[in-house]
């Protein structure tokens, strides 16, 4: 394990880069996914159509392709941003489809009477969704949503290959190819780095799940 201990500084900077990508993408995809879920259950047909199209497009396209279109397609039509921006937004777009479906299943689990009661006391659709339905729905979907987010943390390894670089996974590639360290210890170090993100995230989710649980 000399390869890891000698290069702790590289691993640390790779870990921070990966963690940064994960946190930005988590906030982005949770927010966007909730909006898309609201679209999918809204009474406005064009919004429902948009939501359905969104989920069908991004849930059914491999992440590498979304990244590819973002990093190479957008510059082709004159949109030039940093690769970090392209990479993280592609990850957000892709994950938002899964977040949306997890939240929609939560919304469906809230009994219709709740929404009807909200509407009957005069709340608008937006109010009944944000004040009555979503708070109940989100509590129910903590476990599936957590899985989606943890999957996204791991997907962040792919983002590094699209011009971002410097993340945990690229650090591993640099150590093995350019600096000639043996593969196995280096990749084990990379795996430990990802576990250091995902295992605490899993524990946090358990805590949240217990805190927000409601008895129906």
């Amino acid at each position, binding site marked *: 394990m000399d390869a890891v201990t000698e290069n702790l500084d590289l691993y640390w900077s790779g870990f921070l880069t990966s963690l940064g990508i994960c946190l930005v993408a988590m906030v982005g995809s949770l927010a966007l996914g909730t909006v898309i879920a609201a679209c999918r259950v809204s009474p406005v047909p064009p919004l429902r159509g948009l939501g359905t199209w969104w989920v069908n497009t991004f849930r059914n396209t491999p992440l590498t392709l979304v990244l590819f279109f973002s990093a190479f397609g957008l*510059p*082709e039509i004159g949109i030039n941003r940093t690769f970090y921006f392209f990479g993280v937004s592609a990850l957000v777009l892709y994950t938002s489809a899964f977040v949306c479906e997890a939240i929609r299943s939560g919304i469906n689990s809230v009994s219709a009477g709740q929404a009807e009661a909200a509407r009957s006391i005069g709340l608008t659709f937006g109010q009944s969704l944000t004040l009555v339905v979503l708070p109940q729905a989100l509590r129910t979907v903590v476990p599936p949503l957590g899985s989606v987010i943890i999957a996204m943390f791991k997907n962040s390894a792919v983002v590094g*290959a*699209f*011009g*971002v*670089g410097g993340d945990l996974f690229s650090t591993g590639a640099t150590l093995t190819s350019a600096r000639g360290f043996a593969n196995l210890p280096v990749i084990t170090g990379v795996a430990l780095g990802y576990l250091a993100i995902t295992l605490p995230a899993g524990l946090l989710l358990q805590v949240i799940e217990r805190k927000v649980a409601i008895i129906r």
Partner: protein
Amino acid sequence: MRIRKIGAALSAGTLMFALAACGGDDPATTPGASGGGSTEEPTEEPSEEPSEEPPAEFEAGTTMAALAEAGAVTVGTKFDQPGFGLQGLDGSLEGFDVEVAKIIAAELGIAADSIEWFETTSAIREEAIEGGDVDFVVATYTINEERAQRITFAGPYYNAGQQIMVLTENTEITGPEAFTANPELSVCSVTGSTPSENIREFLASEDQLVLFETYSECADSLGNGQVDAVTTDNVILLGFAAASEGAYKLVGEQFTEEPYGIGITKGDVEFCEFINQTLQDNEDAYLAAWDATAGQIEGTQAPELPEPSDCV
């Protein structure tokens, strides 16, 4: 039967026409073409060779004597490296490595037509030499210690090195120092590659380095304006510059050294010394070979023939 004959005649005719159209670029380097053409084409018969070139004098028992005696040689080269060894659509090879091999063969009294070409990709070069598939290898073959344990290197005949490729209209970047001077400029290379490590010392900030999995992704990003430059060995860059039809060019000096050698059987010191002597004696042909091949690509500098290393 009749139809088949007509078909054969037609295809033979087409082949002949195709060869004629290609302007006499050593059709005999193509195994297929020489097979199809030899029965009908009276020209370029190899029979007149011995009278034209006197048999060279070599000490009996050496590789040179054996090759000169046989009048044929098998050379390993790359078939997919523009400027160095690239197989055209008609099957003929062109490039600097190919020309260097022809110079050596000529010194052995072997005509270019009698060279048999063998594709040696980077991964199989040592195996091809050790297994006797080839007599020597000229294939953008960087001399290094690990390889020298299995084979012997003659040469070097060319010093490749890391260089920078930019868009043709770019005048700001003239060398790696441009990245130190202007932290806004970005440069692309491949994750974990030696060039990506070498360029770091010229960077003002880490963010300037953009890393992809392949160089073609870097070239695409250069084309659509996402990065300002691509850096790796000049030979790889030359390939992209050549394929871009003038969109990319190479700038600045080479700032690392990758000496290319000619691979031969381990321990064949006489043959190694013969090759080194041949290169020294044929400097004009060497320079002409560069000008006719890799030298055609904009931004390349004519090489100086490097001093040969000791044969071991």
